[in-house]
């Protein structure tokens, strides 16, 4: 039987023909899948809303020659509406799905899938400030892809200490001996926030102030853009702390 079933999150959609869409799905067990959803732009479509960006669904797919075809979709989490209602959440969610799309270019993993749906659910519920959820997601998604940053020991020689120099190209904080001349330095509170975001320690992260968050975001953005060739298209549009609509 050339059909299979899996849980999936919709990363992005493209219009196809008159009323169809191509949906890029990150599935739990089958990696990344590009599939055709027929007739979803028509008003009578039974699964239009279930195959929108940021939606999580139980999908049934038919293996096609070039693209698979979605034959069924049952909603498991409709995060799209709540995310779209808040601009900071929406722009953050865009950066998340673009990152997931790029990190799973070769192969997807169930861990990347679970990390992404957890982050989207958190965004939709407004559990934390959107940019904190995004930054935590980025650090952890890059770690799963094999690029875990270090915010405690020197990322070059492994020396422990209260390092404040950060070199994204070297993988995180570096000690005074390893720091190249003119290496950027940040306050300890920024390092503490980055470390909390990487661990998922929300008690520490939620207690930080706007200026610390903004500096940490700068580090996370630089780290992300360094590891993802060509950079992320959506990252410059993310509405950050203190910015209005």
């Amino acid at each position: 039987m050339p059909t299979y079933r899996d849980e999936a999150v919709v990363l992005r959609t493209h219009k196809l023909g008159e009323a169809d869409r191509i949906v890029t799905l990150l599935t739990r067990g089958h990696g990344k899948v590009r599939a055709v959803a027929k007739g979803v732009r028509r008003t009578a479509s039974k699964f239009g809303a279930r195959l929108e960006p940021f939606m999580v669904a139980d999908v049934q797919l038919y293996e096609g020659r070039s693209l698979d075809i979605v034959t069924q979709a049952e909603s498991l989490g409709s995060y799209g509406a709540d995310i779209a209602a808040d601009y900071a959440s929406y722009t953050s969610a865009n950066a998340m799905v673009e990152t997931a799309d790029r990190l799973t270019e070769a192969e997807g993993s169930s861990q990347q899938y679970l990390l992404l749906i957890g982050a989207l659910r958190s965004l939709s519920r407004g559990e934390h400030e959107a940019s904190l959820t995004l930054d935590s997601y980025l650090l952890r998604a890059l770690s799963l892809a094999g690029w875990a940053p270090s915010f405690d020991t020197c990322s070059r020689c492994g020396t422990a200490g209260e390092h404040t120099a950060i070199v994204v190209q070297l993988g995180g904080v570096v000690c005074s001996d390893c720091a190249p001349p003119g290496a950027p330095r940040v306050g300890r509170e920024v390092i503490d926030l980055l470390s909390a975001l990487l661990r998922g320690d929300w008690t520490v992260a939620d207690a930080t102030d706007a200026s610390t968050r903004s500096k940490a975001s700068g580090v996370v953005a630089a780290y992300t853009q360094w590891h993802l060739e060509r950079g992320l298209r959506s990252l410059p549009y993310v509405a950050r702390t203190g910015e209005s609509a």
Partner: protein
Amino acid sequence: MYEGVVQDLIDELGRLPGVGPKSAQRIAFYILQTETYDPSHLADVLTTVRDKVRFCEICGNVTEQTTCSICRDPRRDQTLICVVEEAKDVVAIERTREFRGLYHVLGGAISPIQGVGPDQLRIRQLMTRLADATVSEIIIATNPNVEGEATAAYLSRLLQAMEVRVTRLASGLPVGGDLEYADEVTLGRAFEGRRLVG
């Protein structure tokens, strides 16, 4: 693969949105084989459309003059502006005969993953139109999907600071669909039942 100009035609047709390789081949062979079909008319229209058609300086709708026929019509209600994503949505709403105000065509919806932010849309031009106090209500009629809702949320927050009523088409429009596919009755009802936002 076909030889020479036949393949050129198929390739050229295939570059158009919504035309797959099979449709391109079907259209190409229709043009080749149908003796009663005169392709010179299509060729004329194609060459003149880019020269003649432009976007209305006020609302962004398509027109052959500097402003569109709706913006020029003094009988239209100057106090209402309906904001849509594309010019084809203007056509869909006009069909309902439910709306007698003016339009503002954004030129798309906010989609960071596709490199479209607020600055790539005609949002600044919309704000300019609100400078004098003529407009009393903005009706946001972006598509009922994630990008359209996000654009609506962005606009309503931006418009909060202005002395203007902001409304959104009533739900009832199928979520995930395109506005252009909504039937006239449903779209008309969505206008009547529009709700205040912000």
